[in-house]
């Protein structure tokens, strides 16, 4: 008896991945009803599988939306299960997950309720302490962003200390009008690395591909500036700082493609007079070293 139940417990993974044969699936579902530990494991593994699915997210054809929306008008919905589950759910949702910070990343909404997710890569928020001592893998994982954050802070200090003003003037201000196709090539390059940094001034994400010698800098929700001031992005290397372009819409998501970027360079952002300057005139509000 005991052996058989342990056998069934091993099936949690295959059950979640829909890899069981239909008769085994039924057996397992019967077992699941009175096995709270299996239920808990299935929940966690389902969320995990959902992450695997998210990684394959792909935009459906536009016609699908109108087809589905139209179909909802012809489709009667199921009533809630007996009991007050729906009402209770709503209550629970409201009291727990509803009004979280507006800066939450879009996709994180899909996983409302997940704690200590890898999305904390911003490096600014420490993951909740793990209750389970076995989760050493995960701990190692969450430490990386923290280190990255520390490095970035150190770099800001270094950049300020070096005195940005001595950086060469030979570089013209050239705002690269990046086409979407060029940006896509960088973002989808096989070696593309992503760094994300959220600060009080907003969120900056840099996708860097060494193969393409380019970086896509995405900014969002930057603090609005007084009129006559703009955010300017820079590629900073040992040779100096070169403009990567101006942030066109500080309050929204905006992208700049920087060409000729090499590993070891840094991406910096300064506040400059309208129109931008050829060299940075203020200390950077943000510096991001590129992954090597």
């Amino acid at each position: 008896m005991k052996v058989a139940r342990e056998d069934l417990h091993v099936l949690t993974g295959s059950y979640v991945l829909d890899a069981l044969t239909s008769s085994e699936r039924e057996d397992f579902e019967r077992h699941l009803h009175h096995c709270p530990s299996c239920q808990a494991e299935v929940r966690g593994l389902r969320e995990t599988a959902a992450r695997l699915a998210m990684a394959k997210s792909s935009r459906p054809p536009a016609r699908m939306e109108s087809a589905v929306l139209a179909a909802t008008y012809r489709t009667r919905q199921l009533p809630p299960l007996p009991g007050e589950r729906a009402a209770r759910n709503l209550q629970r949702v409201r009291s727990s997950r509803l009004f979280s910070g507006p800066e939450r990343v879009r996709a994180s909404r899909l996983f409302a309720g997940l704690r200590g997710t890898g999305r904390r890569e911003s490096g600014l928020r420490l993951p909740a302490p793990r209750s389970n001592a076995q989760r050493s893998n995960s701990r190692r994982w969450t430490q990386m962003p923290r280190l990255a954050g520390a490095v970035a802070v150190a770099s800001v200090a270094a950049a300020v200390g070096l005195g940005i003003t001595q950086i060469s003037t030979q570089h013209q201000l050239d705002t690269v009008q990046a086409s979407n196709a060029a940006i896509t090539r960088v973002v989808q390059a096989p070696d593309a690395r992503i760094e994300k940094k959220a600060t009080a001034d907003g969120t900056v994400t840099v996708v860097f591909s060494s193969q393409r010698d380019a970086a896509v800098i995405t900014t969002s929700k930057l603090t609005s500036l007084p009129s006559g001031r703009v955010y300017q992005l820079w590629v900073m290397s040992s040779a100096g700082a070169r403009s990567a372009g101006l942030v066109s819409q500080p309050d929204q998501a905006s992208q700049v493609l920087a060409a000729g970027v090499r590993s070891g360079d840094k991406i910096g952002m300064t506040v400059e007079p309208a129109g931008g300057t050829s060299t940075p005139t203020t200390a950077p509000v943000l510096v991001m070293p590129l992954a090597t």
Partner: protein
Amino acid sequence: MHYMNRPEIRERRPDPGPSEGEGQDLALLLAYVARGDHKAFEVVYGELAGPVYGMVKQILRDPAQSEEVAQEVLLEVWRTASRFDPAKGSPAAWALTMAHRRAVDRVRSENASSRREQKVAGEDIIEGDSVAELVEASLDRQRVNRCLDSLTELQRESIKLAYYGGYSYPEVSQLLSIPLGTVKTRIRDGLIRMRDCMGVNW
């Protein structure tokens, strides 16, 4: 209940209505969908359509079939919204569980499987996505790939074949030439490792 202690949670306030932009939560939106709110469903669609379609296409490969199945799944979200229970998981996991199950059912009916074999597994070309979406998807991919890399080869291959390939574990066992029992344990151990690596904590 530790949610209550999180500083970013504001006081409960009166019914905000589903059209209130930022801070909306998919789980809450589903409660509105359950009451027949089409506007709430549009938002839910916007969040779930990409993952659902991507998942289904990963398994079926054929874009036309994938579109058909993804449509069924999204309509199922509408139809069964009242049955969504936030205590049992996230809305994404709920919808993607349905998506995966349906795609696999489709594959396992003979008809589809023979058609599927004619399709070449090409690289996904993401067209028309906004850069923000691309970056978001790349972040997900990067994280998942890093965690997949931390698995043993057998764990990784078993999970990929079962989840992304839609193969049953006896099929995985044949493809990898390993015993049935081994596949079951590799899939479970590998998924548990993925869960811990990605910090999933349900």
